[in-house]
C-alpha cells in the first residue's frame, strides 16, 4: 500500500465478512477422518518418487504454556507440571523417528519451525536435544540460507537464552507482544515488560538471528486507537524485520480461554477499523512493506524481496520465502502438506500420545486433493502471494479455457472490480494496492467449497 493511498475504510467494512486465511486450500474444514495414516504413507511415498523430490520443511508443535493468555485460540496446555512436558517430548522423539524413516534421506530440511503453545517452555538443554534428534532422523541443511525459526515468550527468555537458541541452530525468531498497554495486558493476562521485550530484539540481532518477527493483536479488550498507537510507535523504534498484526477474533463459545475476557470491553467494529487504519498507515509511513494478510516487513527483508520478485510462498505459518517444500507436521494438532495432500495429527495430547506409544503415526484426518482442488489451490496462491493470476499459465497446465471454465467466478468478481480491489482483463486478474488489504475476499471467490455451501460459517471476520 503506497503511503499516498488513503485507507479505504468503507471497503473494509463492506468486505468485512467471514473469510478463511487460506494458509491452505482446501481449508482445514475439508479435512476428514477417511484420510488416515495409510493414506499419509502413500502420499509420502509418492512424494519420494518424483525425479527431483521437494526438500522438506518441519513443523514441531510444543503446546505447553506456564500461564494462560485469555485471547488465545491456539492448541495449548497450561500447566506448571513440567513432567507432563517431559513426557510429551519423549513421545515427540518417537514421532520424529517414525516420520524420519518415511522420507528419503537425500531430501534436505531447508526450513523448520518450533511453534505452540510456548516452545521455550522447555529448557534450552531439552530444545538442544530435540534439535539433535531431528538431525539424527532427518537430513538438516547446513546452509546459511536455511530458515530455522522458533517462537519465544519474551517474559521467560533473556539474552542468555537467545544466545543459546542461536547455538542450538535457530536463525529466525518470532515473539508475541500483542500490546504494551498495562490495562490491556491485565485484561488478557499477559503482563510483559516493554523494555525487556525490545531488548530481546536487539539481543537476537547481536546473536546472528537473520529475521526477527513480532506479533501484535488489535481488537483486544480496552484497546483504543491512542493506546495502540503508543505500542506501535515503541515497536517501530526497535525496528523488527517483520511485524504481524492480527485481528482478535472474540469467539468465547469456541475458545474457552476467551471466556475470561469481558465482551463489553472488546472494542466495537468502528474502533477496530480505526485501529487497523492507523496501524497500517503508521507501518507504511515508517517504511514497512505491506505483504498481505496482516504481515508487514522491512523493504530489505526477504519477504519484501520475494514479493518484488514474485517468489513469495504461503504456508501454515503465513508467508515464506522458501523454495517449495513438503511440510512434515509433528506433535499434537500439527498439520503437514505432502504433495497433493494435507494431514493433521490428533488434536488432544492423550490421543496423540496413545497413537505414538502404540508405534502408529498419529494421523487424525486430512485430505487428498482432487485435480479441481489443485487448480484452485494454485489460483488462490497466485492471488495471495503474487497478487496476479495469469490465465495463460493455467490454460497450459490444466488444458482449460480460463474465462470459460471460471465464468461463474469471474462474474462474481465484477463487484470487486467495480470497488477497485482488482483489475480484470481477458488475460488476467490483478490485485490492486487496495485489494491487497482484502486478499481473502478475492481468494474466496475461487473457493469451491464456499461456493457450494453458501451458508455462513464461523470464520473470523476479515476485520
Amino acid at each position: 500500500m503506497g503511503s499516498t493511498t488513503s485507507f479505504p475504510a468503507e471497503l473494509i467494512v463492506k468486505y468485512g465478512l467471514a473469510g478463511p486465511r487460506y494458509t491452505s486450500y482446501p481449508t482445514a474444514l475439508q479435512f476428514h477422518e477417511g484420510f488416515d495414516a495409510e493414506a499419509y504413507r502413500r502420499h509420502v511415498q509418492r512424494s519420494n518418487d518424483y525425479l527431483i523430490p521437494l526438500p522438506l520443511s518441519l513443523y514441531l508443535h510444543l503446546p505447553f504454556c506456564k500461564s494462560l493468555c485469555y485471547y488465545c485460540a491456539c492448541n495449548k496446555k497450561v500447566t506448571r507440571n513440567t513432567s507432563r512436558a517431559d513426557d510429551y517430548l519423549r513421545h515427540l522423539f518417537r514421532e520424529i523417528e517414525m516420520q524420519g524413516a518415511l522420507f528419503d534421506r537425500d531430501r534436505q530440511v531447508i526450513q523448520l519451525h518450533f511453534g505452540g503453545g510456548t516452545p521455550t517452555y522447555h529448557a534450552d538443554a531439552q530444545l538442544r536435544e530435540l534439535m539433535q534428534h531431528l538431525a539424527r532422523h532427518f537430513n538438516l541443511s547446513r546452509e546459511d540460507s536455511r530458515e530455522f525459526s522458533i517462537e519465544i515468550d519474551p517474559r521467560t527468555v533473556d539474552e542468555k537464552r537467545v544466545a543459546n537458541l542461536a547455538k542450538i541452530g535457530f536463525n529466525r525468531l518470532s515473539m508475541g507482544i500483542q500490546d504494551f498497554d498495562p490495562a490491556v495486558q491485565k485484561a488478557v493476562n499477559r503482563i510483559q515488560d516493554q523494555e525487556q521485550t525490545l531488548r530481546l530484539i536487539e539481543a537476537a540481532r547481536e546473536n546472528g538471528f537473520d529475521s526477527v518477527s513480532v506479533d501484535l493483536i488489535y481488537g483486544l479488550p480496552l484497546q483504543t486507537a491512542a493506546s495502540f498507537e503508543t505500542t506501535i510507535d515503541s515497536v517501530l523504534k526497535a525496528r523488527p524485520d517483520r511485524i504481524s498484526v492480527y485481528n482478535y477474533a472474540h469467539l468465547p463459545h469456541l475458545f474457552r480461554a476467551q471466556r475470561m475476557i469481558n465482551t463489553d470491553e472488546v472494542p466495537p467494529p468502528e474502533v477496530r477499523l480505526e485501529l487497523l487504519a492507523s496501524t497500517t498507515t503508521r507501518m507504511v509511513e515508517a517504511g514497512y512493506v505491506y505483504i498481505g494478510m496482516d504481515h508487514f516487513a522491512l523493504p530489505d527483508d526477504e519477504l519484501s524481496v520475494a514479493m518484488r520478485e514474485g517468489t513469495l510462498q504461503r504456508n501454515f505459518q503465513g508467508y515464506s520465502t522458501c523454495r517449495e517444500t513438503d511440510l512434515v507436521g509433528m506433535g499434537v494438532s500439527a498439520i503437514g502438506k505432502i504433495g497433493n495432500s494435507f494431514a493433521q495429527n490428533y488434536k488432544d495430547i492423550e490421543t496423540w500420545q496413545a497413537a505414538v506409544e502404540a508405534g502408529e503415526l498419529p494421523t487424525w484426518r486430512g485430505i487428498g486433493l482432487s485435480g479441481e482442488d489443485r487448480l484452485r489451490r494454485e489460483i488462490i496462491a497466485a492471488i495471495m502471494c503474487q497478487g496476479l493470476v495469469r490465465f495463460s499459465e493455467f490454460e497450459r497446465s490444466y488444458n482449460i479455457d480460463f474465462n470459460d471454465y471460471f465464468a461463474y467466478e469471474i462474474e462474481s468478481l465484477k463487484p470487486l472490480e467495480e470497488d477497485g480491489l482488482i483489475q480484470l482483463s481477458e488475460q488476467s486478474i490483478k490485485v490492486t494496492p487496495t485489494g491487497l488489504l482484502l486478499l481473502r475476499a478475492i481468494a474466496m471467490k475461487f473457493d469451491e467449497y464456499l461456493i457450494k455451501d453458501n451458508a455462513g460459517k464461523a470464520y473470523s471476520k476479515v476485520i
Partner: protein
Amino acid sequence: MATERQHKPQFSGRKQVACSQCALSNLCLPRGLDASDTELFERIVLKSRPIQPGEYIFRAGEPFRSVAAVRSGCFKSFVIDQNGEEQVLGFYLPGEIIGFDAIHEKVHTANVVALDTSSICGLKFESITEMARQLPVLQEELFRVMSLQISEMQANAADLSADERIARLLLSLSARFAKRGYSATEFNLNMSRRDMASHLRLATETISRVLARFQNAGLISVNRKKVAILDIEEIQKIAKRDKSKPHLL
C-alpha cells in the same frame, strides 16, 4: 515394486482396430503397408481395455503368445535379480512394441507393468510372422524395430558416467516423444526416480543430484513430472552423441 492387481483378461470382447486411422500409424508396425495390406494387418490386431497403473501385461516365465503395441500411456519392463531387487530394463511409449524378448525361448523373460492408465494393441506373434512371410515390408519393419530396441539396450550397457547416462536417456525420450507428435523439449515422465535409477543402474540420489545440477545450470527444468529441455545442445554434448553420425533414433 509395482503393486499387483487382479488379473482380468485384457482382450475379452474382441475390439477391432482401424490401424489406418490410428494416430500412431506412421510409427507402428503397419507403417510401410499400403491400404489393402493394412486392412489385412488390422484383422490380427486386438485393442485392449484401459489398463490401470500397476497392472501387469506380461510376467516373466509366462508362455509367449503375443506382443503388445503401446497405444497410449507408458509401461516399464523389469526383472528381479538374485537379491530380490527390481532391475528396470526399459520404458515403452505409444507406438513401441513390447515382448520381442520372448521370441527366443517362447517365454517372456521380463515383467511388464503399466506406469499410467494405458491401453495396448495385442498381436498374436504367429499371425505376425505368418503375415510377414507374405509382406516383405512388414518383415523389414519387424527387423527394424527389433534392431532399434537392441541398440537402445547396448547404449545402456556401455561404461558411461552418471551424467552421460542421464543425458542419453533424456535425449532418447525427447526423440521418442517428438516422433509421436509431442514436443521434443517438454514432456511428462511417469517413471519414478527409483525406476529411472534402476534402469540406468545408478543410485536414486544420483538421479536427483544430476537432474538438479542440470537444472541449476539451466539445461533443463523439472517440475514434478514435467521435464523441459532448455539447452538440447549442451545435453547432447554431455551425452557425447557424435553429431556426424545420424541419430540412431
